[in-house]
């Protein structure tokens, strides 16, 4: 099993969620985060004083998938989150050791 973590632009969240749902991924966890990669921040003005906003709002999407689904999920996220502009985000894939459904106690790919 793999844990796929994707950092995407906030307004792309709905598209990503729909794309994952379309390929059969049933569970998703979403967190609001801030960050930057090579995309620089911007300057704002408050009462005449400039301040740099380095950290940009992003959304972290986490999905746990079986090994077979992994490539399809990555492709779905990549296509739906892509705008072609700087700051589109990144996807990280980590190995998922185990998964358990709390209500029933199912484990492994039955828990996904």
């Amino acid at each position, binding site marked *: 099993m793999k844990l796929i973590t994707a950092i995407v632009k906030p307004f792309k969240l709905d598209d990503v969620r729909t794309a994952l749902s379309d390929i059969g991924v049933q569970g998703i966890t979403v967190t609001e985060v801030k960050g930057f990669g090579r995309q620089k921040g911007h300057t704002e*003005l*408050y*009462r*005449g*004083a400039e*301040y740099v906003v380095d950290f940009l709002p992003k959304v972290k999407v986490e999905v746990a998938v079986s090994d077979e689904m992994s490539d399809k999920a990555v492709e779905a996220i990549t296509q739906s989150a892509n705008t072609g502009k700087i700051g589109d985000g990144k996807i990280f894939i980590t190995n998922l050791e185990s998964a358990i459904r709390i209500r029933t106690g199912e484990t492994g790919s039955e828990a996904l």
Partner: protein
Amino acid sequence: MEGQVIELAYALDTFYFLVMGAFVMWMAAGFSMLEAGLVRSKSTVEILTKNIALYSIASIMYMLVGYNLMYPADGNGFMPAISFFLGADNEAADVIASGGDVYYSALSDFFFQVVFVATAMSIVSGAVAERMKLSSFLLFCVVMTGLIYPIQGYWKWGGGFLDAAGFSDFAGSGVVHLCGAAAALAGVLLLGARKGKYVNGKINAIPGANMPLATLGTFILWLGWFGFNGGSELMVSNVGEANAVAMVFVNTNAAAAGGVIAALLFSKILFGKFDLSMSLNGAIGGLVSITAEPLAPTPELAAIIGAIGGILVVISIIVLDKSRIDDPVGAISAHGTCGIWGLIAVCLSNGDATLGAQLYGAAVIFAWTFVMALIFWGILKMIIGIRVSEEAEEMGVDVAECGMEAYPEFKQ
């Protein structure tokens, strides 16, 4: 029949005082919201506590001694006679016998005046926000509302030497707003800037947490100001007075509007953006500017006076920042700088006023309040300190001073 008319006029004018006073009381809510919106969320509870507490302390201190100091039965022009507690009200028979000279309830006059001292005091709370010890602030309140404000108020509205010198201040650009700003400036100078505001020669922005609250607060102040200026006409019960009150309302509105538009355009020119927080200050600056004389100008002139106030407040905020004087809400600029402008602007429309007398009054009010405030802030600083610890400031005065968060469900 004539007795009935006199009684009716008395009742109307008393009612007018009470309702206008209630409008000015509502300004306390305005200041609370404006300040809560312009500080960081970790300082919100503390500033709200300051605002409701200062209003209450002002109410009590003015009732105990302040009102009698400001409007004494006796005085030599500089020092009023000292007396405590409020006196009895007028009897109907006395009112009728006076032929209408006594035209309002004595207690309604107290009520109308007490909300003004609260306004002056609340100017200070914004300027010292986010780093002052709550207990020191509240102790200062006691002195400001019980002594400092009443004495300079006596000098003008109580019939003291400033009044005799021809100084003109209809509703308090000097007596209320400049006075509050002077006390605020003294406090801020002894307090120092917020940590991280001025670092390595750079002015850092510390954005306010809640623009909707700040805007709401400004609108509430605008509404309350109709009572502040309108009520200061002191009478409404005949055609002349009713018309005068109407003019005051119109001019007050025009000046605020002029202040907003001027500040908005000016900030667009200076910063390239329409700055909401500056336009809110512009409204206040415009209102303060017309407060010394909201009756005599034409509405067009009132709008211009307000507009100049709106530009002055923006310039003043920038100058104070460059001078490393940290005023999180722009109170010293809106009430002090525009208060002085308001006193000077009286000469534009009131033929009885002279520039000399206006500047004299401004200087006396500023000097008295600033020096007295400096002394009392200084005493407080020596005995118990006026600034919270660095750690408390980092953590936020809400948690450190009040043991409470404003938005406990929002995690950092």
